[in-house]
């Protein structure tokens, strides 16, 4: 399950920010490692909401520091 979400998230980050799929790993920070800025993060959130039908409110987005944080949140709320 979380592998599927990680793979889906990697595809989204690649689409939105051009980060190679293989670089999108659980321990990577969106901002510091993947250079996903706050605007691109909005796009990532939109795409995740559409893909998995979850709601990710702005108050949660600031807690999603790493790819793993996002995978955990989506897994728990999907």
């Amino acid at each position, binding site marked *: 399950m979380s592998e599927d979400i990680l793979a889906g998230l990697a595809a989204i980050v690649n*689409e*939105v*920010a*051009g980060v190679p799929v293989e670089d999108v790993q659980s321990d990577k920070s969106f901002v510091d490692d993947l250079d996903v800025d706050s*605007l*691109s993060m*909005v*796009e990532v959130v*939109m795409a995740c909401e559409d893909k998995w039908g979850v709601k990710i409110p702005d108050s949660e987005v600031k807690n999603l520091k790493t790819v793993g944080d996002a995978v955990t949140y989506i897994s728990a709320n999907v």
Partner: protein
Amino acid sequence: MTRNVVVTGIGMTTPLGGDVASTWAQALAGQPGISQIPWPDWHPDQPAKIAGLMKVDPEEILTRVEVRRMDRSEQCALIAAREAWADAGSPEMDPVRLGAVVASGIGGVNSLISAYETIKEKGPLRVSPHMVTMIMPNGPAAMVGLEVGARAGVHTPVSACASGAEAISYAARMIQSGRADVVVTGGTEACINSVTMAGFAAMRALSTRNEDPNTASRPYDLDRDGFVMAEGAGILILEEEEFARARGARIYGRYGGAGLTSDGHHIAQPDPEGTGAARAMREAIEDAGLDLSSIVHVNAHATSTALGDYAESIALRAALGSHIDQAIVSATKAMTGHLLGGAGAVESIFSILALRDRIAPPTPNIFNFDPAIQLNVTANGPVALPAGDIAALNNSFGFGGHDVALVFTSV
């Protein structure tokens, strides 16, 4: 101490080609780049369905992420800027001495329209977080400024179809006044959509010669019926002469001067006497410190409208007097269509190349020369320009009554 301004790099993407070399070759060959717009969902009442679409689509050149984050007008500005910057030898310099002045006449309207479509289809929470920086008129200047790391200032003069020319004059002033040593400058436009096309058509400004796109833009022809919308960008690298020489840069030509006036006549129609336009031309030639006789070539604004082409022609005669009879006039919009905010920049590059190659590009599509136009137009093909020190005048006028004339000189 006078700080002279020279042109050390050029770049463009137009309906004639994806770069300078292909665009200039097609211009000299007199081959227009106008076509029917391939939209499946045209409203049957849409009056004008032809345009000068960029010959090489930016989406074929840029990365997917660049396309996603930039309006089409920003995309083509960036492509032209990359070509121009590389052409100038990618100067290594203090970024505090580097500026960017890039204009658009209209801004990122295509992106605004798609954002509205998104709201209708998916709701407001699906509007792109990049939408604002895609529609703002200073977006192309900002994107180009970021690309080269400009820190002397990034600016966007807006004067409709005179915007590209006004940007170049502003850039030159930055160098002359000592604010910058190098400025990346020019204009861009990419607003071919049903809304803009309907609006210009409502003004009766567009040609409706839909069945014969390549003869639709016909400046100075008796049967001209309006301009043809086009998209693309032109970018120049302007540089302080001593700075350019010190780094061994190749110099295409000199920026001579600019004249900027306003008609004070009507929001959209040209002053039929062309007095504001004539003053701009005289001021540009005076600013360049030249005699009227130095102007051997004119790249006219000449958009293929009944009123505009005629008003400019009498303004040229008023400005240059009998010297206009020795000047070879080209109306290159016959081939490119009208790039609005990009036009002044693309035509400045044409002017510089005309001086360099000593050739005035042709003005095709004149089947019945309007006898009211008393100019030496390149109606029958390209015309050689004289040797020695020569100068060219490039006119741009915009809705709002903006008149901008630029002068370039040979090296």
